[in-house]
């Protein structure tokens, strides 16, 4: 857990100590230089996202995690606030391409939802219809959203859900979330912005 600086009010006649300078200058500047932040991705595709079903995504790789907000071993869908505050949050995914691009795509960030889209509260979302661009490789659908949380207490967490109603040509209604390597910006993250 990071410590949000609570700046000292200096009193008349006070002679600053080294500890005060470290706490009130060094630690404070370090906090704002690197506020609590996390960004996660997947190294493999997320297969078989069923049609018309909000599905929570899990994440197996930390790109940035300055405050132990994501665990790659358990509850891997969750970004957990370890420092109280308001957070900027973002998610961006990329769906696989189909020759029959129909339907809509959705992304939904929820708070304390325990892996269920029916639970928790909405933070931000993006629902849009697919684009049937003709040329490859541009016709992989990107969906993304940003937003801000309301005040998160320590151990409040966010999860990212996705949805589609692709009726594809491959005999299956499942669609796939493209994996996120170092070039495809498929990410889920959040950054502390205010105490």
């Amino acid at each position, binding site marked *: 857990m990071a410590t*949000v*600086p609570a*700046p*000292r*009010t*200096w*009193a*008349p*006649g*006070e002679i*600053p100590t080294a500890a005060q300078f470290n706490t*009130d*200058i060094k630690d*404070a500047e370090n906090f*704002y230089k690197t506020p609590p932040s996390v960004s996660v991705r997947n190294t493999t595709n997320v297969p078989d996202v069923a049609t*018309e079903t909000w599905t929570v995504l899990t994440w197996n790789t930390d790109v940035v995690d300055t405050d132990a907000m994501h665990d790659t071993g358990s509850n891997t869908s969750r970004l957990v606030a370890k420092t109280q505050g*308001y957070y900027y949050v973002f998610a961006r995914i990329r769906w696989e391409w189909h020759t029959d691009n*129909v*339907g*809509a795509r*959705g992304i939904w960030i929820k*708070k304390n939802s325990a892996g269920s889209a029916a639970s928790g*509260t*909405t*933070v*931000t*979302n*993006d*629902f*849009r*219809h*697919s*684009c*049937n*661009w003709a040329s490859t490789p541009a016709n992989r659908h990107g969906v993304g*959203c*940003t*937003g*801000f949380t*309301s005040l998160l207490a320590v151990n409040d967490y966010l999860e990212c859900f996705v949805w589609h*109603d692709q009726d594809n040509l491959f005999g299956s209604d499942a669609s796939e979330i493209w994996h996120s390597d170092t070039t495809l910006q498929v990410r889920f993250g959040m950054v502390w*912005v*205010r*105490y």
Partner: protein
Amino acid sequence: MAVPILRTWVPGDMATHGMLNDNIREPVEFQRDRPWCFMSRSSNQSIGNNAWAAVDWTSTIVDNDNMHAGGTTQEFTIQTAGCYELKAQATFAGNLTGRRALRWDKVTMPGTVYVGTHTASGTNSSCTIPDGGAFTGNTVNTALEVSTYRVFSPGEVLRVAVWQNSGGALDLWGDMTNSNIWSWASVRWIASS
């Protein structure tokens, strides 16, 4: 809100408590709580067909610089000069027909809807495909998001406007009463200009 102006220390300076407060405490306080107004809606707002409408923001999540305290519920009034990040999201009720749009306006005549305004950020659009046809059998919601950076002076007024042409009135979603943030707007100080 006062933006800290930091002292240049010179040899022989004796740091008084006033100097320490002005040059250490106040900058840290400002960093911790920069001017920010983050608003949502507590209920749906009906948006008429084929006409831009200003959004009424009825739920305050953060407003530490009184940006939404004066004027109408539509308005954000800049109190502190600087470069701002403007972001907004509009979530419309599901409807298969037409398109949706969202924009920021800088209002040059506060209180006069769309007279003397200019668009501070571009129009975004969703719920559309190039051929304009129907896309799905599902009546899903449409969410739009727009963001930009602009420099503003104290007293300048901003609004968020939305548009849709579903053929009739369509709800812009709001639900802060259940802690859901469906449609929201954020005006956040980023840097001195």
